[in-house]
């Protein structure tokens, strides 16, 4: 006796959260059944393995049918085939678009292209996440990217509107899209200590301050080929950053800056002497990062540079985080007292964001 056909269809579509998770994690039906057996469900319910098998198959089939709709979540809301309560719809969408930290760290900043997709095998082996799950997560990134790529307006809002994600998840996706668009390097060994959250935090600051959308410039001519307002860095701003060069190139200015900072921080910093000794190097590093941002290559290496030029030197001198904060605050603020320096607004736009990023990046 073999079961040829075995289905269960409810007027309200039954969603088993546990099975959904197993499905999302890319387990085959057989593996999922084995995992469920191990969870002790048979003892709890008195069911047999055959019942579990049939149940799992059923749910997998339902999820498979739902997947097409999940690719465009508004469709899930308007479709008539599956009657699903709104709270369940939200759960389905949210879980489908959720991603693994380990996976996103591998892909973050990479071009979401076929080439990367081919590397998913390696990522799967490396992270222990099933290839199927890797594919889903990668395709999600790519799909969101494709949809919001050409759109104007707030990146987070666009994502939320088209994918009905929670605020938190939409922000994460904004970061992923932003990183993919600007191809920031995140995979280098020295960046391995950083979490996705660190990068997402930086992305949010950069989107808020360094993009065209950030300055609220509405395109005057609708036909002009404007860049995507939230996804691309403000080119003009990057060009202007060259003006900051003077802060390190002009020796008088650099000395003045240093003395202002040192005067203000004397006695307040545990690592004062190290700071004093390193000031010029650190300042040079931070300003040089700014001036190089006109080159795409250097934009990509932004995080590598920040870690190399600032985080690592401070860390090797064992600066506590509070000292880093004192220093960066004073370092940014003191520039306002440099009479010869005329680009105060530009400096604030640059340093305000950078300070936030550096503080977030500064940890072990």
């Amino acid at each position, binding site marked *: *006796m*073999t*079961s*040829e*056909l*075995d*289905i*269960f*269809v*409810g*007027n*309200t*579509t*039954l969603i088993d959260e546990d099975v959904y998770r197993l499905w999302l994690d890319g387990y085959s039906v057989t593996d999922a059944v084995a995992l469920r057996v191990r969870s002790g469900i048979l003892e709890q*319910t*008195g*069911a*047999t393995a*055959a*019942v*579990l098998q*049939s*149940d799992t*198959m*059923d749910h997998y*089939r*339902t999820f*498979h*049918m739902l997947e097409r709709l999940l690719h465009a979540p*508004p*469709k899930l*809301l*308007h*479709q*008539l*085939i*599956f*009657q699903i*309560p*709104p*709270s369940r*719809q*939200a759960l389905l969408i949210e879980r489908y678009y959720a991603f693994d930290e380990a996976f996103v760290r591998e892909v973050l900043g990479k071009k979401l292209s076929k080439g990367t997709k081919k590397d998913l095998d390696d990522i799967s082996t490396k992270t222990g996440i099933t290839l199927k799950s890797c594919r889903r997560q990668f395709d999600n990134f790519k799909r969101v990217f494709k949809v919001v790529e050409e759109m104007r307006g707030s990146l987070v809002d666009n994502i939320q509107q088209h994918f*009905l994600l929670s605020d938190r998840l939409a922000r994460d996706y904004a970061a992923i899209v932003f990183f993919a668009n600007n191809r920031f390097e995140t995979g280098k060994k020295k960046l391995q200590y950083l979490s996705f959250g660190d990068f997402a935090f930086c992305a949010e600051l950069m989107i808020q301050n360094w993009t065209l959308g950030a300055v609220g410039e509405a395109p005057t001519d609708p036909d002009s080929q404007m860049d995507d307002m939230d996804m691309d860095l403000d080119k003009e701003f990057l060009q202007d950053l060259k003006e900051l060069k003077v802060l390190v190139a002009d020796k008088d200015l650099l000395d003045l800056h240093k003395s202002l900072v040192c005067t203000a921080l004397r006695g307040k910093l545990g690592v004062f002497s190290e700071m004093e000794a390193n000031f010029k190097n650190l300042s040079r590093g931070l300003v040089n990062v700014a001036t190089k941002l006109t080159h795409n290559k250097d934009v990509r290496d932004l995080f590598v540079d920040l870690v190399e030029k600032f985080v690592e030197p401070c860390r090797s001198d064992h600066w506590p985080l509070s000292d880093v904060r004192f220093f960066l605050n004073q370092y940014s603020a003191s520039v306002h007292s440099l009479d010869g320096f005329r680009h105060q607004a530009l400096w604030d736009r640059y340093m305000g964001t950078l300070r936030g990023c550096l503080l977030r990046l500064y940890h072990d």
Partner: protein
Amino acid sequence: MPGKLKVKIVAGRHLPVMDRASDLTDAFVEVKFGNTTFKTDVYLKSLNPQWNSEWFKFEVDDEDLQDEPLQITVLDHDTYSANDAIGKVYIDIDPLLYSEAATVISGWFPIYDTIHGIRGEINVVVKVDLFNDLNRFRQSSCGVKFFCTTSIPKCYRAVIIHGFVEELVVNEDPEYQWIDRIRTPRASNEARQRLISLMSGELQRKIGLKVLEMRGNAVVGYLQCFDLEGESGLVVRAIGTACTLDKLSSPAAFLPACNSPSKEMKEIPFNEDPNPNTHSSGPSTPLKNQTYSFSPSKSYSRQSSSSDTDLSLTPKTGMGSGSAGKEGGPFKALLRQQTQSALEQREFPFFTLTAFPPGFLVHVGGVVSARSVKLLDRIHNPDEPETRDAWWAEIRQEIKSHAKALGCHAVVGYSESTSICEEVCILSASGTAAVLNPRFLQDGTVEGCLEQRLEENLPTRCGFCHIPYDELNMPFPAHLTYCYNCRKQKVPDVLFTTIDLPTDATVIGKGCLIQARLCRLKKKAQAEANATAISNLLPFMEYEVHTQLMNKLKLKGMNALFGLRIQITVGENMLMGLASATGVYLAALPTPGGIQIAGKTPNDGSYEQHISHMQKKINDTIAKNKELYEINPPEISEEIIGSPIPEPRQRSRLLRSQSESSDEVTELDLSHGKKDAFVLEIDDTDAMEDVHSLLTDVPPPSGFYSCNTEIMPGINNWTSEIQMFTSVRVIRLSSLNLTNQALNKNFNDLCENLLKSLYFKLRSMIPCCLCHVNFTVSLPEDELIQVTVTAVAITFDKNQALQTTKTPVEKSLQRASTDNEELLQFPLELCSDSLPSHPFPPAKAVTVEKASPVGDGNFRNRSAPPCANSTVGVVKMTPLSFIPGAKITKYLGIINMFFIRETTSLREEGGVSGFLHAFIAEVFAMVRAHVAALGGNAVVSYIMKQCVFMENPNKNQAQCLINVSGDAVVFVRESDLEVVSSQQPTINCQSSCTEGEVTT
């Protein structure tokens, strides 16, 4: 020109990409009704076209309005080649033809294609302007309301219940026409869908005409079925119960415009109507039709019949002789006379209802059924379907005579079914023989009904159990005792019925689903030989099914079966029998005796030991079941009986000793070699298997109950959380081990595993009950068995369930308040004018808590934030006639839909399971969409009447036909009603009066 149909095509959405180059679609719509077609403009390059068309107007006869479906086709415009069809929507406009149902159909309909399934949605608005037509000879029957519900619909009152209406229409099946060889599968499927839609429209119109002739205005318990007879044609047949219904909320405005006014109805007594059935079937006498059907038919169309009453397990061939005693008690005789006068004019005093107004059902005799094996022949003249008519007439005659033998004049809970395999067809009919209260059958005035009901309500609580036949001249051997409730009348020891449990019946403990399952191998044969073989097997199958049912009932410690449905399915090389029923312990019937096992070889010591071991196991099971289903009758029966009988103890002891002695009688019977249901003889391995299978039925896991009736006896506090589902399983038998035993085991496992799976899947709903569990078996191929189950799971409140009501009064109160709106509403009218300020608030407060189950489910539903963007309203579906915790405020019309789905890429669609899963989900979606478009939010009395699945994996093909029906309704949550009622003092009073009444 009595009607104008107006259609507007508003928009489409989620259309499929039809043009690969642009990834878009140039869609337009054809709107067709009858032979007239309109087209919208082409909406270029969009998957979400906004046609916003003008109103397309069709001027049509109301006859066409009833028969024809509105046909909407969405196409992709193609400049160079033929336009590609995207899909279709068929809209049955019948609901717009009743004056009080829906007024407009408006909403999003799934665009359906028989090859691709649902492909986007289309927004359509449909209206009908009807003109009055006083032509007496018209062929239409607009205005007659149809209900699938097998009880009086909740917001109506039955003025008169006229009786049986039936009709059938036949046609050639387009799939078997010569043209099918050259047309595409899509064209063939669409031709079939359209034809069936047309035929069911015609059938409904013809039934409506009969109802008008009977001076009714509605059909209740309307059941329409298709017989796919293959080469020989397509039969669409329907049965129902004609009624005159009166809307409760607005009594004045209930009659449809084209119907005769109610006064006139009273002047013309129904009885004078000569013969309600003559018109449809024409002068078709059995004799005539036998000459009509092709010549050898007489020789092999053997009939197998049996009257399946309580204990009569052997087919009663000579039962039609009318041996029933005519001299019962004086009361009985009087009743009989009255009923006789009301029923005798009728050709068939049958009622498809399964639940009745209080007082309607006087006595129940038992189950009557008849089966007949026929050989199908090509229907030569579709306009005169006399052969099929005659077949059914024969069977109905037999049912009628069986009922008569049981001293009954009517059959209630009546249904008909067929099973077809190649050219052999088994026709089956079954029902419950009953004695009815004549007052409902004639011009029962409202007052009359009420008074009488109030008078009889209490005394008849056990009345339906009392035997209608004469005890001295019983049609079968039965053990009679005095009723355990009233002590005045005789009752049988076991009662089988096809109806729902009467609301006023006193039940002890809970009920449970009881199934008998059976397979019999049969040699493959042709035509006549095949029919003969089947005819010969049928009586044995019926006998065994009944033995199994009886044994399982005893094993559960129960004494009555309700909702009994025995399905015999014929296949190429086997016959399958599946009987489902809900077992209960009726307080009025005696405690069932246990099951005794007897061996044939008493000298063997180890054998004896084995027997006694088995006996112990059985006794343990019975004890366990009694505990599980909370059956503890002795204390309760004595408590209840206490008052009316002076010396209760002595009496009951006496009775019990009688029942004990009856057990001895059965043992005596055994010694005479007569096999009785109580005693299992283990004389061969077969019998061993039987005993084993008896014990292998696993009870549902704790927190689960199941029944196949509307409600579960003993559970009263339903929450509003319901889940209707359909589950289908097909197993392939390995041809090697095809013995009866192996077959039985496979079939048994299939059913048991299916139930286990359901329990597992629905575990989140615990505590919960599966209600209206409906199993259907079919044998699509040689080695395939298909079982389809539709049921609804309802969560109940455990806290209240624990304090299960001990007194029947409280029980009936609760049940009444949860489901039986009729009960609620009869008294409404009584009280509302006489007692406008009835001071009952405290009573109300108490009962409201019980009546409106604000369980977790309800709460959860409400707290869920409504999705802001969603345009899709929730539509509930249930096979029950009510929605727990809610009140049905309006019936919008009948939903009767037929779909075909076919695929030539089975593997790509996820194999057979993926294919059927998607199709059933689509069918649900289409039903919901139609209900929503009518303005409804639920389908009640939903039933999947057919699910015919055929596959050809080698060709990567599969096809499935599904037929569903139900009543579209609007319901209001009781919790919402309360808000209203607190604002409106009149309603408040009404509900308090209700309570006052019910508690009396």
